[in-house]
């Protein structure tokens, strides 16, 4: 099992007498090689959950295990961080070097990897995200999508088994978003990397193997995206939306047109409309 959460609670201390439970008793297993989408409105606890996965936060109670190693074990935390790579929201906050290949080399350098191996890894990581031709350039003049792909390359150079994208597409334009998603799906399919993609965009969640919906520190829904989107009334109630096409089908259904069940994308919507019209 890539990730195991056993009754995990995390509380932020506001002061001595006030605490907010951001994650409330979550138990969860994620199999190696799965592409998981994690959604929830602001404040639902999803980013806290992400930070628990590589020991940036330690559970207040319960246990988080990555490939069997607990994040509470100080002897294992190094291994865990090597295995769980995280990419964050803001592309401008994650660059540390002025040249692309230096930036990617930063991780393995800090792990004491041999020079030749670093060169190999940098080349491999940059080609994985389609940025090899930019290796001698400076990251600061790049587009948001390129910067996020570079951030992913920096994480890949550490050779993680799990990639956590914490709203990494939120600040990008549509083109940048699809660039980043494409890279994430490729890494998942070709290299078997487990991907945990946190997002607000429901149509991004559609492509995942598994969709986990968080609300108020708990898991509200967990299943394939198709299964989860059937609960559209409940999803709206917890301030989330369903894909546009699903909403369209629901609106027509409510008006009295039989749209059938489970429309989640454009193709299915158009197919059904062609039958009807």
């Amino acid at each position, binding site marked *: 099992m890539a990730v195991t959460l056993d009754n995990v609670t995390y509380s932020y201390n506001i002061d001595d007498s006030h605490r907010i439970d951001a994650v409330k008793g979550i138990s969860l297993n994620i199999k190696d090689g799965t592409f998981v989408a994690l959604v929830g409105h602001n404040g639902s606890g999803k980013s806290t959950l992400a930070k628990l996965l590589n020991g940036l936060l330690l559970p207040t109670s319960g246990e988080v295990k990555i490939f069997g190693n607990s994040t509470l074990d100080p002897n294992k935390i190094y291994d865990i961080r090597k295995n769980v790579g995280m990419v964050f929201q803001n592309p401008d906050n994650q660059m540390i070097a002025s040249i692309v290949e230096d930036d990617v080399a930063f991780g393995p350098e800090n792990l004491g990897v041999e020079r030749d191996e670093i060169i190999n890894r940098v080349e491999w990581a940059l080609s994985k995200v389609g940025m090899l031709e930019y290796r001698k350039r400076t990251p600061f003049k790049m587009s948001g999508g390129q910067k996020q792909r570079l951030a992913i390359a920096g994480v890949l150079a550490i050779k993680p088994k799990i990639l956590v994208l914490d709203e990494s597409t939120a600040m990008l334009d549509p083109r940048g978003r699809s660039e980043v998603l494409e890279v994430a799906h490729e890494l998942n399919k070709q290299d078997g990397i487990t991907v945990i993609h946190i997002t607000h965009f429901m149509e991004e969640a559609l492509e995942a193997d598994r969709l986990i919906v968080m609300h108020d520190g708990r898991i509200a829904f967990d299943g394939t995206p198709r299964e989860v989107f059937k609960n559209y009334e409940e999803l709206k109630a917890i301030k989330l939306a369903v894909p546009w096409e699903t909403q369209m089908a629901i609106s027509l259904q*409510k008006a009295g047109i039989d749209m059938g069940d489970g429309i989640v994308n454009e193709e299915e919507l158009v197919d059904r409309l062609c039958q009807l019209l």
Partner: protein
Amino acid sequence: MSIVIKHLSFTYSAHTPYERKALENINLEINEGDFLGIIGHTGSGKSTFIQHINGLIKPQVGEVEIFDIKLTPEKKPKVNLRKLRSKVGMVFQYPEYQLFADTVEKDVAFGPKNLGLSADEVAKRVKQAIEMVGLDYEAVKDRAPFELSGGQKRRVAIAGIIAMQPKVLILDEPTAGLDPFGKEQILNLIKYLKTHCSPTIIVISHDIDEITRFANRIVVFNDSHIAYDEPMQQLFKHSRQLQKMGLDIPRAVKVVNNLRARGVDLGEEIVTAEDLLKAIIKRYNEAHSTDIDENAGIFDMYDFSQKWLTSEQREELGLITRKEEPKDEKSHKVGKKFGLKNDKKIKPAKKEVESKSKDKEDKE
């Protein structure tokens, strides 16, 4: 005519190896009452363009006329930029990163104070602006901005601009990074501001489905030029060209185009979800001899568009923050968190405003 732009060109880092043309011979007239959407992929020039409209960038070539203020490459006559910025309000991307004061009230007051308004007028406008963005003035005025949620912070930042009561309001990616519910709230707020605050609104967005919810006119930037400038219903006749530019087209237009390719023509001028619902129901009625009301389809992601002003429903929708604890205790806590001593406890801004106006009266 509110804004007239003539032959505007702009080049970044001119005469260096990094030289890059951002705008080339832009001509555009923006009318009072326009609800203008600006689209274009990253680097197409749209941000450079709007920065010209409130004088953040001086024209290199060409001129920008905003109401009666003319910006030209010449140094003289000197332009009153303060006057310009009181007329054109700009809400940047991620405006919540620019909140800086220790209370919401002080932050919102910064703009109008700098316009040189009287303390009473400032206080009045601050209250009005905070209420206008759907926050409870009494509940939030003394709170630190960073205690609020992301969507609330963004609304405070917008309040800081509309407190200057600009005639033209520009918003750059106003919903970026928010969750779906937060997005809906901001979109509804923008519509509300159009009728209640700034008669001319310009919105830049990457999300075309968002733009089509309110714009009556769309300008497309591509490669430093204006590629299209059309009424919203007309623009998507150029769907193929827009897609070639790497731009999204509205989902309803995609569905209509797909249906047309498969022999079902729902007609032109369908842009929004509501348009599409109507057209489908109409066609369905014809095909099945049914009698469904064409307006029966409601595309309600969240059904609160009509409920703006009843306080009960606002509260229900989270537009008003419920007070959980006494305010005084809260501000005390903030001070403690940041290592401030108790005697430096954040004072409510209102008192300060009052005492200042008192001073003034005394002097008079």
